[in-house]
């Protein structure tokens, strides 16, 4: 299966600013890999290096073993969906999608057939003869996708393709993108700053910050086993509690903390406990003292699909706790009431500031 990408030691500096700091990454054939990071992290720069729009200072990219970095953009044979779609306004939907094929010398019935097929895949065949200015955002997105896949590229690049859509449409398109990827099996590199989108779509996520890949892993690895405070903070509605660590273990407000992994050397450099609202348990045995948090409820907010309960620790740090509409026979706390919370051992992760 073609589409194996090997990125090696890519460096790119703008003046004294290191946009890409020695980035290496392997992408497996057929994989859906997401570059996730805040703006300015270098994720888009890396995508543009792949597409050939940004010339790095050094490094190597091979695709299926062949050096790729020195090819001009038009010879790279990559499909790309741009952030604002970049559909040609002077061409109809059909001509936009047919453009890459016509450049490759495809014409006549073959051209028509392949354009129809690509438009069919994104459910846009019925609007083939519209001008692109007459389309809605979601429709443009589909056409841009059809144009990127019509020539069957070995690799598909997407630069925040859903960011211009409203929330509902974005979630719908995520599902469609996932199905399309399952169907075509094209190696896909996807750039986004939306962590939920990354978790939804990806086989693997590369969290990018400061021009480096800070963690590479499957969505559950990234979410449940963040390597440092940055990753933990960037993914999920995360709060942190300070813990006292020693060579033998950790204490949370003086109580012993049982962590997911057995205590090992080096863990004493990880002073932050990762707290996610949906991982906090509010039903438990009062005799369970380990991993117990005692706090005071400060706000109880009904958000339709769930309750968001804000609690304050004795030292003033606030945590959020999310409960589904089914409260499991327990009453909602009143504001100012003390509340006891537990964190299961499997969700007890400590992180360092940097790693």
């Amino acid at each position, binding site marked *: 299966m073609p589409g194996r990408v090997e990125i090696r030691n890519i460096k790119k500096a703008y003046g004294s600013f290191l946009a890409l700091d020695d980035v290496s990454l392997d992408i497996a054939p057929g994989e859906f890999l997401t570059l996730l990071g805040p703006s300015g992290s270098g994720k888009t720069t890396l995508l543009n290096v792949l597409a050939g729009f940004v010339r790095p200072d050094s490094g190597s990219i091979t695709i299926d073993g062949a050096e790729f970095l020195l090819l001009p953009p*038009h010879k790279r044979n990559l499909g790309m969906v741009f952030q*604002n779609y*970049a559909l*040609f*306004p002077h061409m*109809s939907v059909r001509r936009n999608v047919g453009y890459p094929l016509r450049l490759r010398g495809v014409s006549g019935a073959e051209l028509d057939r392949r354009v129809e097929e690509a438009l069919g895949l994104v459910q846009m065949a019925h609007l083939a003869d519209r001008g692109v*200015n007459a389309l809605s955002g979601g429709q443009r997105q589909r056409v841009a996708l059809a144009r990127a896949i019509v020539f069957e590229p070995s690799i598909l690049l997407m630069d925040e393709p859903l960011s211009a859509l409203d929330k509902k449409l974005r979630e719908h398109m995520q599902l469609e993108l996932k199905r399309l990827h399952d169907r075509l099996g094209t190696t896909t590199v996807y750039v986004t700053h939306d962590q939920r989108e990354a978790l939804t779509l990806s086989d693997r996520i590369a969290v990018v910050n400061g021009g480096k890949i800070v963690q590479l892993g499957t969505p559950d690895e990234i979410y449940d086993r963040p390597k440092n405070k940055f990753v933990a903070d960037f993914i999920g509605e995360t709060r942190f509690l300070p813990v006292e660590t020693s060579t033998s273990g950790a204490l949370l407000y003086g109580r012993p903390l049982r962590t997911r992994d057995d205590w090992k050397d080096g863990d004493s450099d990880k002073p932050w406990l990762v707290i996610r609202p949906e991982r906090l348990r509010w039903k438990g045995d009062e005799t369970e003292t380990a991993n117990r948090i005692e706090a005071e409820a400060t706000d109880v907010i009904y958000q339709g699909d769930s309750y968001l309960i804000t609690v304050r620790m004795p030292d003033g740090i606030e945590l959020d706790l999310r409960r589904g509409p089914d409260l499991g026979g327990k009453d909602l706390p009143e504001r100012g009431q003390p509340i006891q919370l537990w964190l299961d051992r499997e969700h007890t992760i400590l992180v360092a500031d940097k790693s």
Partner: protein
Amino acid sequence: MTMVLNHPGIADAEPNADALKRRGSRERRALASLTLPGAILIFLVLILPIGWLFWLSFFGPSGEATLENYARMLKPIYVRTFISTFEVAGLVTLVCVLLGYPVAYLLSQLSERTAGLLMIFVVLPFWTSVLVRTYAWLVLLQRTGLVNTWLIDAGVISTPLPLVHNMLGTVIGMVHVMLPFLILPLYASMRAIDPVYMRAAANCGATPSQAFRQVFLPMSLPGLTAGIALVFVLCLGFFVTPALLGGGRVAMWAMQIANNISVYGNWGAASALGVVLLVVTAIILYAFKRLFRVDTFEGVR
């Protein structure tokens, strides 16, 4: 509470509806009144004189009502002038496009700062009067002018080239005046073309020259047509430069108008020529708009 007063005994179903409606229309009237000074000015200095011109064109030299002023225009001399006016305007526009498009393209690809600096050289001619620039061309291009003297001194030619007092000199001088009118709208429209389209074209597999021809050029057409229409229409009525640099060999419509007044004192005939020029210009602008639907790309196949 007017509703209640107007319809005693009926419950007020739409409270304040009338008062709110009156506020709305008062606000619209207040806003519309802002256009009043401009509207008065346009009426006094544009609509009124043109109406007067139109009126005058139907009277002969001795004040009798006649269509003779229009009938005269079928004479060969006027037909020839009419055609030659279009030829000159077309040629000047063509040269402006050939010279201006690359300049506008270059400027559009530079950073805003650099482009702003270089733009000074484009608009610099605007800061000098057309008359001064036209005489300057005379100094450069005449038989004993700078260009001929240099070429003879350098041994390139032995007799002076006829650079001025002919079509060539006229076109050179007019292009110089008209070029900014082409570059400015073209530059503005090229600036508005997001560079991402060229990236998208390259990504689709277009070489740089294919991307330029198939994506950039079509997208710059609205600006180009705007520039072409502007230059062409300005050329049709151009007087000073062709009069001075044409040496009597280039006949333009505007020069016929001037002749009718300054030589023959025939205001009626001059007015008729003016009306024809105005009507023809309006038709051309309308045709441009229809032909190149500059405002929209929709439905293009």
